[in-house]
């Protein structure tokens, strides 16, 4: 199956795919990790696997924020909202709403009467606080460096306006320590990285330099269009052929090499690194997540409220951890497409469109649909 006809420049796509075939060494097996969940979604949606030679394997990385959040954090956030001591409005992005906690997802809690609201922006959560002075509004913040600056600016505004009935339950994580943990993992052998697009608009390209310098692996920051991803693979293959390892920026039209300084300043004002944080599938990673600085303690939900601090292991049969690390492909999990589907997700990777399981599941359905149309014709 090829979706190539839908592409803007089918000819250039075909030529780039041919270029990839020219550059590969047929005797070699290549393993490239796309770090960002948006890339995983795009790769499956566009059927790019079908344009690539069989010896290029794309490994899906940890860049899906809801997927890497351990269930215990969801339970903790919902426990605050459920507490009978104080009425708390639980606000979060729509992506979070169907993610299973031990006693159900935020949406299921809402059905049981807990005050759970979807917001599209952290500033909407702050607005809810402004409009509902009798209630406490907690924003359950998730996301990498793409999203953290928006939470930071929102907190700066809450402080400037003196809005006290607002807090953030902070789950923001940082991408570099996760890449480091993957490279340190003994069961993971990678040849190169497709670097995240929108995280890099904030952090720029410099933070990846150690990957090239110390680990001798090429990393190419990539856009999200089919041609972007194919061109990034060409750039990686050219480096590998020349025996080079450097950071390159394929997504120059959006990503400045130095990142977004205003966004980095906002993050530095509000957040500091946690000594360690638990990631689903990757375990505890040191200095891999953000918490509010002391100067923002009044707006820190974890300090303001009693948080149980539970640790929950994933459902035993689900192999989310192995899939997240790229050790297993989604379809190799025992529950994939059987007990665990996008309609009834057991693990977070089946919830978000950026999760590799949901992305692969929808790709399979599209593939079957196309195949049946072709066989009918």
């Amino acid at each position, binding site marked *: 199956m090829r979706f190539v006809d839908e592409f803007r420049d089918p000819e250039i796509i075909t030529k780039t795919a041919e270029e990839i075939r020219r550059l590969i060494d047929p005797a070699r097996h290549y393993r490239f990790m796309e770090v960002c969940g948006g890339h995983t*979604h795009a790769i499956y*949606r566009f059927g790019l696997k079908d344009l690539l030679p069989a010896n290029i394997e794309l490994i899906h990385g940890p860049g899906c924020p809801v997927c890497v959040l351990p269930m215990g954090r969801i339970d903790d956030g919902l426990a605050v909202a459920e507490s009978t001591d104080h009425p708390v409005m639980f606000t979060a992005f729509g992506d979070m709403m169907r993610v299973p906690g031990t006693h159900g997802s935020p949406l299921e809690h809402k059905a049981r009467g807990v005050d759970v609201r*979807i917001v599209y922006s952290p500033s909407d959560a702050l607005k809810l606080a402004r409009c509902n002075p009798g209630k406490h509004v907690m924003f359950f913040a998730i996301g990498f460096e793409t999203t953290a600056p928006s939470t930071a600016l929102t907190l700066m505004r809450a402080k400037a306006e003196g809005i006290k009935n607002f807090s953030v339950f902070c789950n923001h994580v940082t991408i570099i320590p996760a890449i480091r943990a993957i490279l340190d993992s003994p069961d993971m052998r990678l040849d190169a990285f497709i670097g995240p697009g929108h995280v890099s608009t904030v952090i720029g390209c410099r933070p990846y330099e150690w990957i090239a310098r110390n680990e001798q692996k090429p990393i190419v920051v990539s856009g999200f269009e089919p041609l972007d991803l194919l061109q990034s693979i060409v750039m990686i293959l050219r480096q590998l052929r020349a025996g080079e390892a450097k950071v390159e920026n394929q997504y120059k039209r959006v990503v400045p090499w130095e990142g977004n300084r*205003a966004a980095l300043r906002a993050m530095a004002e509000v957040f500091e690194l946690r000594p360690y944080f638990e990631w689903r599938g990757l375990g505890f990673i040191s200095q891999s997540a953000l918490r509010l600085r002391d100067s923002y303690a009044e707006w820190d939900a974890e300090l303001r409220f009693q948080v149980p601090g539970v640790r929950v292991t994933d459902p035993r049969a689900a192999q989310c951890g192995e899939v997240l690390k790229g050790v297993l492909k989604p379809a190799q999990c025992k529950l994939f497409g059987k007990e665990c589907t996008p309609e009834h997700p057991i693990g977070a990777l089946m919830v978000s469109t950026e999760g590799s399981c949901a992305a692969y599941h929808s790709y399979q359905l599209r593939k079957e649909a196309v195949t049946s149309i072709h066989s009918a014709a």
Partner: protein
Amino acid sequence: MCLAIPGKIIDVLEGSPTLGTVEVVGVRRKVDLGLLQDDMPKPGDWVLIHVGFAMSKISEKDALEQMRTLAMLGEAEQAMHEVQGYGLEETGPTIVREKPH
């Protein structure tokens, strides 16, 4: 939520916070321009929007291509839903869907 939505700046409202009206496929909403304070966009510029904040300036050509990418990813409808959900208006009710007044 990694994907960004392209929008055209219609006006910039100086103040704190600095807000701007953007237009995304005919829908106008306020977004926060605070993350672009070092290189403030002007009316007519195009930006990429993420969770109600403009993140970066882009060319018109890239903005149109980004919208096309969202459509190809099956995300265009979701993106419009998100833009319509932004409640950052100075007046009018915020999104309280559960208890309409």
